[in-house]
């Protein structure tokens, strides 16, 4: 069963009197445990698409199914619950909570969203801290660690709830190329270990090559879907 099925989805925004067509008639499918990248220039619709997949927004037209749920049918609270249980987020600016330590940042979704018991929380967090190599930094606050370390913490936070899907919007945009590569490698490693689907957007060509599937967007349309080793369907979509 496909993890994500997008059927002719469009997304329009009203800005003043102008209607902006951010996505136009986009269709695709993503299987579980994939490592997917959305690429394209600024304004191509990458972030809009990630927001829709992440249940942060709803399509104007079309049907988007994530983990078997039509996200258009979810109300505000159901969307929050769905995100908390099925989706992890990694942000360009890391978005760690500044008043919480590394450990507490990772603990936050387990405590505030999933109400996981203390012992299980501790086990999961320590496992992830070890996996992202941040165990020795667990008591530090976000302003005491580097950008690359912050993103590793963000990855751990995104994975701690055992989500089916992790969405990363430009996860390497604020990192130097070496750190960016390391972060992508870490995501890839975690995908391998946890069988979690990772979807990230980027316009950094160096890290695009790391993705197994690359969707190329332009002017709100899906222009190309490239599976490692060739273009799916053998033509530009």
């Amino acid at each position: 069963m496909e993890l994500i099925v997008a059927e002719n989805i469009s997304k329009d925004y009203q800005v003043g009197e102008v209607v902006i067509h951010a996505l136009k008639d986009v269709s695709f499918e993503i299987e579980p445990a994939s490592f997917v990248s959305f690429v394209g220039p600024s304004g191509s619709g990458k972030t809009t698409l990630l927001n829709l997949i992440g249940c942060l927004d709803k399509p104007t037209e079309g049907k988007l199914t994530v983990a078997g749920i039509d996200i258009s049918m979810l109300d505000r609270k159901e969307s929050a619950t769905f995100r908390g249980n099925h989706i992890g987020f990694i942000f360009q600016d890391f978005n760690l909570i500044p008043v919480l330590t590394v450990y507490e940042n990772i603990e936050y979704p387990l405590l505030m969203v999933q109400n996981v018991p203390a012992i299980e929380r501790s086990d999961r967090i320590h496992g992830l801290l070890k996996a992202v190599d941040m165990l020795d930094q667990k008591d530090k606050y976000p302003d005491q660690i580097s950008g690359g370390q912050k993103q590793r913490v963000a990855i751990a936070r995104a994975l701690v709830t055992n989500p089916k899907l992790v969405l990363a919007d430009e996860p390497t945009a604020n990192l130097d190329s070496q750190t960016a590569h390391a972060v992508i490698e870490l995501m890839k490693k975690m995908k391998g270990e946890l069988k979690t689907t990772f979807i990230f957007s980027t316009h950094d060509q160096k890290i695009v090559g790391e993705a197994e599937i690359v969707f190329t967007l332009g002017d709100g349309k899906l222009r190309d879907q490239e599976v490692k080793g060739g273009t799916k369907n053998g033509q530009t979509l």
Partner: protein
Amino acid sequence: MGKLFKIAVRNLLRYKRRTFLTASLITIGVIFVLIFISVSGSFKAMMISQITDSMLGHIQIHKKGYVAAIDNLPLNLNLRPQDVAKLEDILNNDADVEAYSPRIKFGGMFSNFVETTNIRLNGVYPDREFKTIPLLASRISAGKKTIEKGEILIPVLLSKGMGVKVGDSVVIVTTNKDGSVNGKQFTVSAILESATGPGGRDGYVHIEDAQELLRMTEMEISEVAIRLKDFDKLHAAGFKLENLLAGDLNQQGKPLFETHSWEKLSPFYHLSRMIDLMTFFIKLMLIAIVLISIMNVMIMAVYERIREIGTIAAIGTPPEKILSMFVIEGFCLGIFGTIIGNILGAAIIYIINASKITFDFAMHQGLILSANIRLTDIISISIIVIIVSVIASLQPAFKASRMEPITALRHV
């Protein structure tokens, strides 16, 4: 919940200066209210005690209609001996009553054989009167602290005005119920300082002298002043007495007695109500201070943390938890301000009492400013501040909880 408190406290400590300033504002408000309540409350209690313990007693019982005509001291509205006996029977069996004193009140002419002026007098049983209004003895500035037959206690203003001293002979002339005039010679046994309130400038004679002077064939009583064991039970005790006396009817089928607490007899009651009103408005000011300062700081907190709100909302934090997070922050701010305010307020009240500051009020000089605060006042103020803190946080917290994560995440 513990984690929410931890996050709230850390967020407050994140902006230490702002938190400190806001909490200081609440603290100052709490201190101000505590001091005002303690000083004004103590002043009020002292004045009530002066009035009730110097002259009025806590409750007075009269014949129906007497109080409406009290300025004339009507002798035809006195209680007859059988009515007084009924009343005494009730008062003797009332556990709330500490003491009571029957009085004959009358007006007369006071003469020192050179000049004559008018005087209002109380004929009393001295022992019972001194028990009912214990501050009467302290008002005696010269002479002996009792009243024998043939003796009179005169107010200090009369003593000064007429040049009368302790031991002088004076004559009281009065008109009795039938309109005939009678006179009697008295020896001034003591000079009485004035007291605030009605009857504060009256003289005293023995009740049997009053009966003789007024040519009463039987002991008719103008009023019975009552002292309660517990002043806080004033209204309950008054209500109980009213009910007990309600069965005694006059010839017109109306109640024979009327019961009045000091509040209905003294104009100071209105002043005490003014103090209560001022206290209420001071509390309103405190509420306004807390409301504005907490709301202001919480609105700022929400605007400064829009992206954070977007992040926690995106990762699935339910809206009600986001709301709780900000409400708890306001709650903690209120608690912090209240605790510090209470500690400093109590310390300042202690310093005021230790300093023994004196002040003058009306005829009273050198009164010591005694600031007392009840635990119930501290608790009620604390509860008000905390509730208002939570209410003030609600609007910003609601705004945060309703924020769309996608919009919040885009916020720069």
